[in-house]
């Protein structure tokens, strides 16, 4: 992803009120990590598992933060349990910022990722988690803001799946 797009993504998160991010690094969106790290207005917490990243972010949300979880889409599979038990059942808004590996619009797709990408949306559907696929920077800030507002309104997780220009 171009540096400018990474900066817009992080600024979009801030403008949407995100001030707490838990994460496990991945390849497609990794440029956002140092940008968030350098930003004093966002707490950045490294987790050891996406399942944990979801529960830590949920705790922070209940404590008054507007939290996001940044993960690869493999993390959706890892965190199904906490997304369902805490995100959905307890009803805790979370923005999921997801590197959408192996989806059709993933510009670095290969046999390594295709199966993972192929089942990501059916799994989100199965969990009852709404999502948007973002392939370019058009109306990026608006879409992030819409996603945060929807997560708060739904009292649950909302996933932004980043591919296309974000996966270059």
């Amino acid at each position, binding site marked *: 992803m171009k540096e400018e797009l990474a900066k817009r993504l992080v600024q979009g998160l801030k403008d949407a*009120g995100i001030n*707490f991010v*838990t994460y496990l690094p991945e390849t497609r969106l990794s440029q956002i990590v140092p940008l968030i790290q350098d930003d004093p207005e966002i*707490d950045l*917490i*490294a*987790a*050891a*598992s996406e*399942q*944990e990243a*979801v*529960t*830590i*972010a*949920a*705790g*922070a*949300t*209940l*404590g*008054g*933060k*507007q*939290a996001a979880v940044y993960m690869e889409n493999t993390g959706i599979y890892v965190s199904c*349990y*906490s997304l369902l*038990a*805490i995100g959905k*059942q*307890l*009803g*805790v*808004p979370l923005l999921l910022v997801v590197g959408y590996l192996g989806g059709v619009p993933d510009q670095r797709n290969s046999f390594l990722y295709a199966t993972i990408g192929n089942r990501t949306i059916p799994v989100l559907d199965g969990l009852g988690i709404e999502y948007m696929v973002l392939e370019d920077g058009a109306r990026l800030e608006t879409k992030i803001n819409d996603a945060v507002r929807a*997560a*708060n*309104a739904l*009292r649950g997780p909302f996933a932004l799946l980043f591919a296309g220009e974000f996966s270059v």
Partner: protein
Amino acid sequence: MIRHDCLELLAARMTDQLVVTSQSGQRIEWSHLSKHEGNLLVGMMGCAVGIGMGLALALPHRQVIVLDSDGSVLLSLFNLATLGNLRPKNLIVYVFDNGVYSGSRISYPSATSGNTDLAAVARGAGIKNALTIRDIETFKRAGLGALEQKELGFIVCKVEESLMHREIPRPNTDLAENKYTFVRYLERTEGKAIPFIGRG
């Protein structure tokens, strides 16, 4: 040592702490012993430490207590590595380790009834104040003493398998109801709006 005895002593020391309990007998016993609005009764195993960590990081001036079980901690051992690196000073995790999956109703042994020492795992993960308590007198001194320390605590309480939680009424508070009571309590005591509550 009996878990209910420990919880009774702990409940008497609570003021404005936030208490997160995982799904296990201690959730039922704690809800019976404490009606405090700062209690969050998490309805699933393996999630309480993460939620407690998030609360402790979001509210660093507030003491957060997690009441957990051996089965629950074993389900989310990755929490220990994260805790050992973050070391939030306002978080204490009490693990009531009875060495069995009591909820299974067949008392199937957990790994801690074999070779696994959770306090040693926690120390290896970087948690300095990790200890094992085996009797109520030590719990009174070191277990409750952790409340006065400004340091992350990971207190493994070796308890007998007690079925007291099956004899007392189970909490009938819905998870969402408990969540909103908890969040409204935080809004009131922290003097700030919780963003997701929003406007109707």
